[in-house]
């Protein structure tokens, strides 16, 4: 039987982790950590990449996150959702990494295509996506974390509150402010909100 159980969410949510797998991680089994890594790597790496705006910091953040998971798995309380705990570690790592490197020159790499083009005007959407991605990575850290969790990972404000240890109201307020900032910056870049 697979150690990974499918979560409740219909959206591309990360799988829930079986208690047995967590126990194996607690026992220090490298294979168990690898199983967790394989299950979550795309979700966490995408989030880190969007947070930092470049793959180098995203790779380092993911590496630091799994080292922190190894170090702290003994302190993981079963009452919390494992994915929430994992996302919390990743975002804390991203935020503290960003603080350490705040003075460094911003380096971004955003050449990509959308995973599923959103409208017939694919080119315009891809351009907007690249611009949006760039602007997301310059938002204030907490606003950025909230925006990414809500808009790209499909978290509810309740889940965001639990993950970032903030209230639901704060999460909603950060999300609203992030969206307003993004709209303002996109408008300044000459992008109109209308389709096509």
């Amino acid at each position: 039987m697979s150690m990974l159980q499918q979560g409740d969410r219909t959206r591309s949510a990360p799988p829930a982790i079986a208690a047995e797998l967590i126990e194996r991680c607690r026992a220090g089994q490298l294979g168990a950590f690898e199983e967790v890594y394989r299950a979550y790597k795309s979700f966490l790496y995408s989030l880190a990449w969007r947070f930092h705006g470049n793959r180098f910091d995203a790779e380092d953040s993911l590496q630091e996150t799994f080292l922190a998971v190894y170090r702290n798995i003994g302190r993981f309380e079963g009452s919390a959702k494992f994915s929430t705990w994992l996302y919390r570690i990743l975002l804390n790592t991203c935020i503290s990494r960003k603080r350490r490197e705040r003075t460094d020159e911003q380096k971004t790499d955003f050449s990509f295509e959308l995973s599923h083009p959103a409208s017939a005007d694919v080119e315009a959407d891809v351009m907007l996506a690249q611009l949006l991605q760039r602007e997301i990575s310059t938002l204030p850290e907490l606003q950025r974390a909230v925006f990414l969790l809500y808009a790209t990972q499909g978290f509810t404000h309740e889940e965001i509150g639990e993950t970032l240890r903030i209230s639901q109201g704060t999460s909603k307020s950060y999300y609203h402010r992030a969206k307003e900032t993004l709209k303002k910056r996109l408008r300044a870049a000459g992008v109109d909100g209308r389709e096509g």
Partner: protein
Amino acid sequence: MTRNTHDDEWDARIERIAESLPVQDPPEHLWKRIEADIAYEKMHPEHHAHAKEDSALQWLRWRLAFLAQPRWSMAAFSVLLIAGLAVSVYIVSMRSHDTRTASVRASSEQLLSEARDDIDQAMFFYERAITKLTVLAKQNEKNLDPQFVALQNEKILSLRTAITECKSALDENRYHPDVQQYLLTAYVDLQTTLQELATKKN
């Protein structure tokens, strides 16, 4: 009213585009790096204890963020290297002295154990230097010829794989002299490669 409708369109479009942002997969070699980190932590639980930072220390680290700037990192690394060399020379001289009097006061088992501790220390310092050089090398990559960077990265990847394999072998037989020699050779190669990437100018 029109304004609100336009704003709603904006919101909807931003949310739809954000939702469509592509899911990225990390490179395959990333797990090797994580695996090496975890294996190292297993070998050095005391390092784990030191690595635990309470919030006050974390705050202090953020305050010292300027050290992350390349010139300060280089300076810190140089100081660390010099200090490391000085300590190594001191330890080696102490060990030589100890060796001369070993027949009188110490058993050969004790000397062997101390020598093994020194080897562990050497590995620890190499790991630490490599971590720092990795950061510097990445920072300098954008200034270099991409083909050169790609070649060096391939070399780095194979060295990291070799290091991981050596470490796995050492998990079975911690003090196998040949494996230790391979591992230290790989560390030296990786350190020089990273140093070249970190300091090279186009």
